[in-house]
């Protein structure tokens, strides 16, 4: 029983370029299905690439750098510094006696510089009203998709040293 009009022993080109419009519909659907499957393979390859990247990526090592003297800034005060590179602006906040937090100043939404809003006790991005927790840098409100990158701090003597990026 033949549903279409191409006999089995026809040449391949007749199969692909049929004179019947119904056959044409079949061919285009088949090609489209093949294209979609190849696109699916591409998505899978993308996931594999991320997987390989996560396995073979070494955590970057950053040289320690002095950020401030202990007691240099008052409680609730801030100091701007650059770490690990001169163009990477960061913000140091003294949240209490002997308590310091430091974050990258770059908002995770569109990279505007965040500032410390003392009244609300949070970090604010003025561009799109994004807010971050001063305790852990997590997103409190607004469009930022990720927490602020936190700078690891260490007190050595009377100096506050930045030792790396947390989560890097």
């Amino acid at each position, binding site marked *: 029983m*033949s549903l279409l009009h191409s006999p089995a022993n026809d040449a391949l080109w007749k199969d692909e370029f049929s004179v019947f419009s119904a056959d044409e519909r079949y061919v285009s659907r088949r090609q489209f*299905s093949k294209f*979609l499957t190849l696109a699916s393979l591409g*998505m899978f390859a993308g996931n594999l690439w991320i997987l390989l990247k996560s396995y073979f990526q070494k955590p970057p090592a950053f040289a320690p750098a002095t950020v401030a003297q202990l007691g240099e800034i008052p409680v609730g005060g801030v100091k701007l510094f650059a770490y690990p590179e001169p163009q990477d602006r960061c913000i140091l906040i003294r949240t209490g006696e002997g308590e310091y937090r430091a974050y990258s100043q770059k908002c995770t939404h569109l990279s505007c510089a965040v500032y410390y809003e003392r009244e609300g006790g949070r970090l604010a991005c003025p561009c799109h009203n994004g807010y971050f927790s001063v305790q852990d840098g997590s997103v409190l409100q607004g469009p930022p998709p990720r927490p602020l990158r936190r700078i690891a701090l260490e007190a050595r003597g009377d100096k506050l040293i930045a030792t790396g990026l947390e989560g890097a």
Partner: protein
Amino acid sequence: MNGSGGPEQKRGLLAIDGAMALIIVLLLVQVWLLSATLESFLAGHASVVLPAAIFSGLIFLCCVALNLFVVRLDRDSRRG
């Protein structure tokens, strides 16, 4: 030109359309999965990367199976 076809041919076309619609849905899930995985990876959450890759692979296998189904159905329809 014959553009209408019989009821069996229409059923075949319907089955192929259904399979392709399913492939499209699976592909959309894969696109979302890739973007979400990349987002998580860049945010430093590497734990989601392996399950996402496995799931994406399973979706790809489903797409291959559906594609084979479409090809087989098409061949069967043509050969009678």
